[in-house]
C-alpha cells in the first residue's frame, strides 16, 4: 500500500525532520529562538514545554503556515514544498467550526484533495481509502455521521483519520490529546504506536508530563529554545525538566499525583 516504506540507501542517513537555526517572532518577541532539531526516522516524538513555549509555533513554522524570521527546515532531506505528500498534519481540533455541513467521511477525504490536484473530484477510490482510514481509528460506523454530532474524542479521531489517509511518512500532530476522553487517548496512542511500527515518524505536541514517559520514545523539551532533544531516557531528566519549566516542575515530576501543567 505504502510506497515510502522501502528506504533508499542514501536516505537512511537523512533525518525525517531536520530543523536548522529556526527562529520565529511575533512582532519583535521571539516565539521560538534558534531551534536546531534532528528527528531520526521511525521515532515517536513528543514536543514538551510550558504554555507559550512555542510548541505549536514550531510545527506551524515547519509547515510554513507562519513566516519564519530565519532558518531552514527539511523533511527527509528536502524542503517542504517538494515533499508535501510525505508529511501529514493534524491541526488542533478547536481550529475549525464543527458545525460545518459535512460528514465524517467527507472530512477524511479532504486529506486526499492535495493529491487529486486542481479540478478533479474525489471518486469511489478516494472514498474507499477514507473508509479504510476510518476503520483504522475505529470510526467506520460513523462515516456518514454529521460532524457536529461527534464527541471531542471522535472529532480528534476524524482528524487523525484525515492525516492517515494521506499515507505520509512523517506526521505532525498539534495537541491530539487535548481534552479527549480516556478511551480515545488510548485509541490514539495505539494508532501512534502502529505508525511507528510501520516505520513512520510521528511528532506530537504534548502537554502532559505524566503520560509522556509512557507514550513516547523520543522527546524534545522546548521553552522558546530547545532545552534538550533525544531518546526519552537521556532527555527526560529532572534537570532538563527544571530547565524547561522552572523550579516548580521538580515537584511535578517527582510527585505523580500532582496535577499536570495547564493546557494550551
Amino acid at each position, binding site marked *: 500500500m505504502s510506497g515510502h516504506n522501502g528506504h533508499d540507501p542514501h536516505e537512511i542517513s537523512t533525518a525525517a525532520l531536520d530543523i536548522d537555526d529556526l527562529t520565529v517572532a511575533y512582532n519583535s518577541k521571539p516565539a521560538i529562538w534558534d531551534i536546531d532539531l534532528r528527528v531520526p526516522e521511525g521515532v515517536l516524538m513528543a514536543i514538551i514545554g510550558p504554555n507559550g513555549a512555542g510548541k505549536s509555533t514550531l510545527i506551524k513554522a515547519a509547515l510554513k503556515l507562519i513566516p519564519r524570521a530565519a532558518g531552514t527546515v527539511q523533511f527527509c532531506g528536502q524542503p517542504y514544498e517538494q515533499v508535501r505528500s510525505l508529511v501529514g498534519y493534524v491541526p488542533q481540533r478547536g481550529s475549525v467550526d464543527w458545525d460545518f455541513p459535512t460528514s465524517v467521511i467527507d472530512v477524511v477525504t*479532504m486529506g486526499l484533495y492535495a493529491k487529486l490536484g486542481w479540478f478533479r473530484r474525489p471518486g469511489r477510490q478516494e472514498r474507499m481509502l477514507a473508509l479504510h482510514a476510518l476503520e483504522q481509528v475505529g470510526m467506520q460506523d460513523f462515516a456518514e*455521521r454529521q460532524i457536529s454530532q461527534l464527541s471531542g474524542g471522535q472529532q480528534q479521531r476524524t482528524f487523525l483519520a484525515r492525516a492517515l489517509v494521506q499515507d505520509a511518512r512523517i506526521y505532525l500532530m498539534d495537541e491530539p490529546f487535548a481534552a479527549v476522553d480516556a478511551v480515545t487517548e488510548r485509541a490514539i496512542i495505539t494508532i501512534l504506536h502502529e505508525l511507528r511500527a510501520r516505520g513512520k515518524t510521528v511528532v506530537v505536541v504534548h502537554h502532559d508530563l505524566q503520560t509522556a514517559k509512557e507514550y513516547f520514545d523520543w522527546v524534545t523539551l522546548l521553552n522558546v529554545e530547545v532545552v534538550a532533544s533525544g531518546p526519552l531516557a537521556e532527555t527526560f531528566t529532572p534537570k532538563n525538566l527544571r530547565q524547561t519549566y522552572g523550579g516548580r516542575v521538580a515537584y511535578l515530576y517527582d510527585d505523580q499525583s500532582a496535577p499536570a501543567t495547564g493546557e494550551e
Partner: protein
Amino acid sequence: MPKLPAEDRHRASFEQRRIQRFWLLIGITALVAALFVPFSQIFLHVEYDYTLRTVALGGALLGVVSGVLGCFAVLRHQSLLGDALSHAALPGVALAFLLAGRDLGLLLIGAGLTSWLGVHFIRMVTNTTRIKQDAAMGIVLAAWFAAGIALLVYIQARPDASQAGLDTFIFGQAAAIVERDVQLIAVVGAASFITLGLFWKEFKLITFDAEFAGANGFRVNILSMILSTLIVVAIVLGLQLAGVILMVGMLIASGIAARQWTDKLGQMIILSAVFGAFSGSAGAIVSAVDADIPTGPLIVVVAFLLVVISLCFAPGRGLVWTLLRRHSDRRRFAAQTILHDLYHYAMDHGAPATPGETLGERASRPHLGSAVPEAFLVGVRGATARVGLRQLSARGQVQQRGDAWLLTPAGIEAATKDDHNHQLWAVYRQYSDELALPMVAEDRQQDIRNFLPGEAVEKLERQL
C-alpha cells in the same frame, strides 16, 4: 470494501431517507412557488404581463445567485462582511454614473470595484493595527456609504432627469429590471457558478479548515480572495433588487434557512438557491405591483419568514422538534425512574414475613407483590412523578392502591429488563476496551441493543 455491519446498513437507509426528504422539500417549495402564481392572480389581482414576468425572472435569478454564494458568507462567519460590502458598493454606482452614465453593466463594475476596495481596506486595517474586524467593517460601511451619499446628492443637482432611478440602489426597486438586465444577471451568475464548480473542493476545504489547506500546499490567500470576489459579485448583482442597506438579509437568510434542513454542503447550496429564488421573485412581484414599497424590505421579510419556518420546523434541528424531544425525554425519564424506584423498594422491603424466617432471609427474597406508598418514590417528585405514574399505568405496568402503587406482572417484567439493560451498560463501560467493542456514546436510558451489534451484547452478557 469493508463489510457493512448491520449498524451501517441501518445508517444507509437513514441516509436514503434524508435524501428523499431533501427532494421532497424542494418539491414542496416548487409547488408553493407554482401555487403563488394563481393565488396572486386571484387574490392580489396581479396580471402576469411581459414586464412582470421579466421582473419575476430577474428576482428569481438574483435570489439564486445570492442564495448560492451567500452560503459561503454564512459558513465563513462573514455575514456582516456582506453588510459592509453592500454599503461599500454605493460610491461605485455613483462614480460610474458620473463618468459613464446609466449603463447597468458599468454601474455594477463600479459597485464591484469600490466594494472590493472595501474588502482590502478591512484586511489592511486589521493586519496593520489592533483594530478588530468588526470595527474595521463598521468603518468601511459608514465611510464608503457616506461617500456614496455625498456623490448621489451632488448628482441629484444635475438639471437633466438622467439620474432618475439611481437612488433605487439604496432600497432596491425590482420594477427597474428590464430584459437586458436579466440577460446580464444570467451571464454573470453562470460565470460565477462555473468558477464555484471548478474550485468546489478547494473552496470547501478552505472554508472548513484553512490551516490544513495551507499545510497541504493550497494557496489559501488566493482561493479566499477568489471566493470573496464571488461574494462581491453576488452582492453587486443583487443591489438593484434588494438595495445596499438590506442586501445582507438577502445574502445570508436563505443560506441560514437551508442549513437547517440538511447536513451536506451541496444540498445546502441547492436548497439555498431555491429559497433565494422564492424570496427574490416573491418580493419582486409584490413590489412591482405596489410601486410604493421598495423591493429590498419585501425580500428580507419573505426570506426571514423562511428562516423562522426553518429554525422551528426543520427535521432534527428544528426548535419545535427539540422541545418535543426534550418533553418526551423528560417523560420517559420520569417513567423509568419510577419503575426503577418501585422495583427496588419492593425488592428491599416488600416481602411479608413468613414464620421461621430470619430478617436477613426475608430481605434477600425479592417480593414484588406489595404496594409502595407514593411518598417513598424518591427519584422524581411532584408533577414529574405524576406524569411518570400516569404513563406507567397507561402501559399497564403499575396499579394504584389508594395512596400506594403496585407493580403489575408486566411492570415487573419491564423493570427487570430495564435493570438488566443498566447492568449491561455498566459492563460495557468497564470492559469495552478489553472486549474490543465498537465505541458508542453511552446512554443508559436507551436499550443497549440499539447501539451495539448482537454479538457484542452477547459478549457483555457473558461478563455479567
